[in-house]
């Protein structure tokens, strides 16, 4: 394993104007008994991917709280990462043809990384399946070992999960992003919702001039209502259903639809879905289909902030961080009641839920007819994210977990 270098450091105090000083003081009070305690976080990549992004933000904040935290990245060859990618897809419910050598490769690379385990750490937090086997390097129940699972385990391939479960059962606990993703395990399971960073490029405040320039660049009219869905071009996000809902709304309101997602150039299935979306749009000049390079965070931020209503009409969803982002920006959201969305969109409180194309269209029409209700939903949605789904809450969860484990002894 190698020690990872944190790319961006944002001081904890920078969050005070957003959260309030008492919330920051509280975090310092919770961290006080954990000062100078050694913590090791291990994952499989230092850059790219959601876990590295989270750790890049979390580690410096924990350091500021005087926790002796180390982030290490396990080393693996191409053969190892090929196996773990196959495992990842299988754990998400994909097909998997069992190959005994896959399990040998997994065990071997985990064993090669044993020497990097910091045996002086009081808390060891292992992220995702790739380094899960490091638990076997633990010396006689020393410290507290937690497995943090960031993936959807609701329908795992039985062979792969059957291989991993004996490792997980050796930990002192496991963390999942949703109760639906948890498994029947003998160890305690905790819920840490995914979170967003309010100071990241995708979520920070933008000036009106920049937002106007993004709208102009994409030929979007700021004077008419803008309905937006931000998601990759994937059938599970139902972009075709979004266009159908827009068509119903269009009979009553002169609105525009923006469908923005990552480029489909390196994703064969994404390219097929994008074709379907373009066919469904049928060259409607009020439908903008945007392929954004590497998710262009500032552009996504601007599109969300410029939207009148944000839609997330997924047919299946993990947590739906695009919903979190929209709520944080105070936008009224109309979304499907699937996966983690109802946790965020509390129907009639922080947004509106729908179950069909017609229902989605109706809720959008309702909000366009009642802007004062849309505004209130947006305000309450913002508060909901502030209270429950920010990176600072994620850090607080780790503090509480470590405190409760150390006090249980």
């Amino acid at each position, binding site marked *: 394993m190698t020690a990872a270098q944190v790319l961006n450091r944002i001081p904890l105090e920078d969050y005070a104007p957003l959260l309030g000083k*008492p919330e920051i003081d509280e975090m310092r*009070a919770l961290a006080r008994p954990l000062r100078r305690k050694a913590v090791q976080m291990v994952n499989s990549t230092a850059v790219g991917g959601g876990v590295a992004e989270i750790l890049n933000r979390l580690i410096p904040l924990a350091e500021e709280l005087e926790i002796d935290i180390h982030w290490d990245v396990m080393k693996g060859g191409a053969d190892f990462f090929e196996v773990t990618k196959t495992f990842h897809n299988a754990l998400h419910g994909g097909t998997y043809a069992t190959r005994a050598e896959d399990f040998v490769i997994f065990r071997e690379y985990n064993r090669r990384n044993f020497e990097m385990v910091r045996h002086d750490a009081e808390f060891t937090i292992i992220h995702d399946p790739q380094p899960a086997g490091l638990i076997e390097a633990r010396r006689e129940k020393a410290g507290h070992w937690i497995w943090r699972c960031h993936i959807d385990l609701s329908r795992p391939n039985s062979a792969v999960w059957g291989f991993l479960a004996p490792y997980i059962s050796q930990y002192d606990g496991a963390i999942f992003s949703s109760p639906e993703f948890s498994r029947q395990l003998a160890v305690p399971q905790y819920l840490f919702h995914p979170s967003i960073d309010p100071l990241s490029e995708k979520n920070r405040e933008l000036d009106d001039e920049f937002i106007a320039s993004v709208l102009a660049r994409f030929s979007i009219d700021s004077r008419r209502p803008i309905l937006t869905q931000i998601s990759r071009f994937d059938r599970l996000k139902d972009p075709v259903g979004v266009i159908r809902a827009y068509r119903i709304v269009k009979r009553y309101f002169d609105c525009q639809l923006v469908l923005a997602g990552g480029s489909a150039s390196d994703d064969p299935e994404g390219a097929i879905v994008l074709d379907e979306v373009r066919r469904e749009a049928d060259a409607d000049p009020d439908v903008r289909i945007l392929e954004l390079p590497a998710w262009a965070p500032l552009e996504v931020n601007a599109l969300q902030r410029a939207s009148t209503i944000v839609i997330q009409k997924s047919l299946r969803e993990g947590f739906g961080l695009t919903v979190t982002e929209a709520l944080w920006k105070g936008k009224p959201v109309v979304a499907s009641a699937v996966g983690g969305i*109802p946790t965020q969109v509390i129907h009639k409180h922080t947004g509106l839920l729908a179950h069909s194309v017609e229902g989605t269209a109706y809720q959008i029409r309702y909000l366009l007819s009642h802007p004062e209700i849309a505004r209130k939903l947006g305000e309450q949605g913002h508060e909901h994210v502030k209270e429950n789904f920010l990176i600072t809450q994620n850090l607080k969860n780790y503090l509480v977990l470590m405190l409760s484990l150390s006090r249980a002894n």
Partner: protein
Amino acid sequence: MTNAVQAVGTPFSFFTMAYLTRIGNQCARTLTEFLKGLEECSDASIFHHTFQTLGSHHFLTEGFSNDFAQWVLASANRDELAERLAALDIRDYLSIAELRTDLRRVMTAYCAQYPNYAAQEALEPFYFCEGVEVTEPLGLIAHNLLEFRDGINQLSHASFYFHFISSRLRLHLRTNDFSVWLENSLGLETLANKVNRIDVYTNTLDSARASLVRLIELEDEKA
């Protein structure tokens, strides 16, 4: 300076409480299964889905009461039952056992009255979770009314909630830490009663705190 602004008893120590959500092994897909879950889940689970959830959704002031009522409304689509569950006011309960009894009573009556609805599958399952709690002193102490006001202004939502709402389970009294201290240490019984009457269902935690601070300042002006 009168007793209202002078310390006469023990000082008030401010604490904070933070929760971790632990996922239980129970989940319900129908109202019948939900009733069974209510009967079998831990006290910590009932607390998590009622007291704790009111704290984490403190910014909602219209119609949100607890996770049980919200699931019945949004996933089981039974408005009338949701209203009955939402009407249970956590301030009426001094123990989780009493609250569980009333939750079960409401559910049992509804399932008996509408057996067809009781067997219908909800859109999304309900997962029973529970809170793992840690408390920590904030190092903030008040000896008199003005220090007390200043302390309250420095509290996080969780800390305010700990002293003002969830304290009744700890105290086993229909009151809160603030009112107890105002009455017992400063002898301000009238103020203590006014503070206890601040409605947590129609206020956000911020507006409840503002009301409390206003009451303290009025008391201080009188002194």
